[in-house]
């Protein structure tokens, strides 16, 4: 256990400002539209330097309150130590030195390292809990994971937001990819859902061809030209998971009917009421016995070797193989690792798709609902509100 001095303990108490929520973090009024002035960029850096440790330390506290036997598990212990290392590294960076761009660049590099270190948290945690399933009840595990994963969304957002602002404000060598003009940090103020759906469909379609030898069709209707401000990687993650379910169900039911994605935009200013996306498939629906499990973090399956709950129509695209040297990374996992989409790779096939998608959707006040007509098909309703609108 790393020795942590008094200053660290002081950080564990939340400060009122930090609790105001991350929605304001991504608003243009917080730090302005990129490219930021040096002053604004430094403000963002200082803000991140101050509040990221708070979030990290809360995760550490949650982890260290888990039973000893759980955190002793090598996988979970790895994650735990990652958090400790990251916190130590940030704290070692003197806050007072963030007065010029050189220091700020160093800080951003540090953030980038941290983000990279933690990118595989979820599958490793999952493996760890899987191995510990005899020592913790499914409810406890679900509760912990749910809370942890949701908090993680915010923590990563905070770091990535600053990284994005930095990349857009400080000239970069041509090899580094820089956010587009419509971006504020991680938010694309002119995100077109239809584009995301098309690219995810092509990506998931590729996976299906690889695995099943066939690719279902997808049609988009409703209002395909609408744009709204949102975080593209979040939407990509959600849509990919939903399409995985829809495509797999369609293929396994041998249904020729295409998957239909309907995009609806609430009337009024384009960002006011939000966007609703409906993914409709005719893949046979979800069995009533499975319906109560679709939002759980796959825990009820940790008794047997294959993770399919009930029949093959449980909606998960892949099954986890218990044990083995690979520890659960299957064809799906390996393929999507290389595609590089945010976290899609890591979570493939673990049955985390729906609960994680819902966590992402709900993070900014949206919702995800699943309605199944068993033996016919499933409709999924994703409702999202535009992000970062206050003070525009």
């Amino acid at each position, binding site marked *: 256990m790393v020795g942590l001095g008094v200053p660290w303990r002081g950080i564990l108490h939340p400060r009122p400002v930090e609790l105001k929520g991350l929605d304001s973090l991504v608003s243009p009024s917080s730090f302005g539209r990129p490219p930021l002035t040096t002053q604004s960029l430094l403000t963002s850096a200082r803000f991140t330097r101050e509040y990221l440790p708070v979030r990290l330390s809360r995760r550490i506290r949650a982890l260290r309150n888990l039973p000893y036997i759980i955190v002793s598990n090598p996988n979970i212990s790895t994650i735990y130590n990652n958090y400790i290392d990251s916190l130590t590294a940030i704290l070692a960076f003197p806050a007072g030195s963030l007065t010029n761009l050189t220091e700020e660049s160093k800080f951003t590099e540090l953030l980038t390292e941290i983000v990279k270190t933690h990118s595989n948290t979820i599958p490793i945690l999952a493996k760890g809990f899987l191995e510990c399933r005899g020592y913790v009840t499914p409810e406890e595990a679900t509760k912990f994971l749910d809370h942890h994963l949701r908090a993680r969304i915010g923590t990563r957002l905070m770091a990535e937001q600053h990284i994005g602002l930095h990349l857009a404000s400080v000239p970069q060598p041509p090899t580094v990819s820089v956010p587009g003009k419509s971006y504020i940090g991680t938010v694309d103020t002119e995100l077109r859902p239809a584009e995301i759906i098309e690219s995810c469909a092509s990506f998931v379609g590729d996976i299906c061809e690889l695995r099943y030898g066939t690719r279902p069709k997808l049609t988009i209707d409703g209002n395909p030209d609408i744009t709204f401000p949102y975080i593209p990687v979040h939407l990509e993650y959600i849509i990919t998971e939903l399409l995985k379910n829809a495509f797999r169900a369609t293929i396994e039911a041998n249904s020729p009917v295409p998957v239909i994605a*309907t995009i609806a935009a*609430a*009337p009024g200013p384009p960002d006011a009421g939000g966007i*609703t996306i409906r993914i409709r498939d005719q893949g046979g629906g979800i069995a009533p016995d499975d319906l109560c499990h679709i939002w759980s973090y796959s825990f009820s399956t940790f008794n047997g070797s294959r993770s399919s709950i009930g029949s093959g129509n449980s909606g998960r695209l892949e099954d986890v193989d218990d044990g083995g040297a690979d520890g659960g990374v299957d064809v799906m996992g390996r393929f999507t690792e290389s595609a590089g989409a945010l976290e899609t790779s890591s979570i493939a096939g673990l049955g985390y798709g729906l609960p994680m998608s819902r966590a992402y959707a709900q993070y900014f006040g949206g919702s995800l609902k699943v309605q199944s007509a068993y033996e016919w098909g499933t409709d999924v309703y994703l409702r999202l509100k535009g992000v970062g609108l206050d003070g525009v």
Partner: protein
Amino acid sequence: MSTILQVSSRMRQCASSLESSLTQAVVGSHAKILRSQVIPITAAITTKINARHLSSIQHNPRWRASGVLDSYVAQPARPISLRQLVFFGGRNLDEKKIIDSANYVRTELPLRIAHRIRDMQKLPYVVVTNRHLSEVYELYYKAFESFRRIPEIKSLEDNEKFCEIVKTALQEHLTVIPSLAMGVLECNDLVPSHELDRFMNVILRSRISRRVIAEQHLALTDTFNSPFHFPDSVSNQPHDFVGEVFLRCNAREVVEQVGKHTLELAREANGSTSPIPEIQIEGRLDTTFPYIPSHLEYIIGELLRNSIQATIDHHSQSSTSLPPIKILICHTKQHIIFRVSDQGGGIPIAELAHLWSFAKGPRAINYLQNFSQVPKMAATLQELQKTAHTHSRRESMDTSLSRLTSRPPNLRLGMGLPMSRVYAEYWAGSLELHSLDGYGTDVFLQVSKLGNKCEQLNLDGV
């Protein structure tokens, strides 16, 4: 004091529509009672409202000994499942069964009504003295008193007399649903909405249960008395119905009929030249199942009504043909599923909050005004023939639902969805709605295939 002012200001708003709605037949003797109350009300409003005038519309509740009611409230209701209903009236319908059925109804009705009367008595005084809710209360009490006094039925003659009493009561109670709805709307600022909604759900569920057993008994008596009834025969026609239950309700036919009817009403209401959306049905079209047709027709009717009107309203600017309303029918071992999808623009988030509530939140006044325009309560035979099956038995039986189903689709009462949900959930089903704000709405109706072992009638708090 402020409550009285609020109530009287609402009365002011409704006063003008009150007079006109009273000239429409509010069933039977109730018109007389209301008329006698109206004149002091309008007098009070047109002159200055002060205490003296208010006293003329004071509510003087009839005092009744509560001991009798207590003894009934203490007994639990005896629930019955539809499976039992179906099997009871199926084959071998003989005199003994009819008499058993009569006595079951004779004892159950006052028992179940007693529970509801007690529920009402526990509501705040100011709520029960609302003129609409007070009407319902008096109706219920009258029914309770009359039914509990009926002696045991021992012969077919006794049964005939009993059936007459039941028929009269069913007729008289036709106004209960609109009265309850209007009463709840008027009281929505006096009691928290969730309490009102809970009250409405309980009372409506119980009402369904009482009418089902009453109407079922009447229908069984009819079958028994009908000249075509041969207890041992295996002929087809009469046995498709067991009382009110249609054993082979065909989902597609119901939807087509209701669809046709609702489209006609829409055409009338919106003008014959304005475009009307098409209704397309897809899915497992051969699905049949035992059900009570009037319930299903009501629910589907409400959903189609909403979809049709929303589609017309949303596309009123465009001259192109309207997008169709698509209905999917499918079934599992235990359920029939209807999915009604429209492109009527969806439901704004602000309205979603009050969608399932009878109390309707801040827009209650709009719905109240529409209530006064519900078409004449006394249904004519023509109206009935528009909605009823082509089955002789049912044409003679007016149902409270048929009056509501024959109103034009642009007359928004705000009750369709919560009422439909009560009916859907009554037979262990469900009703879910998903809105794509800016595009359209999907509604999922899941109906239990009745006769399942696992289905139970939901009854008074059981």
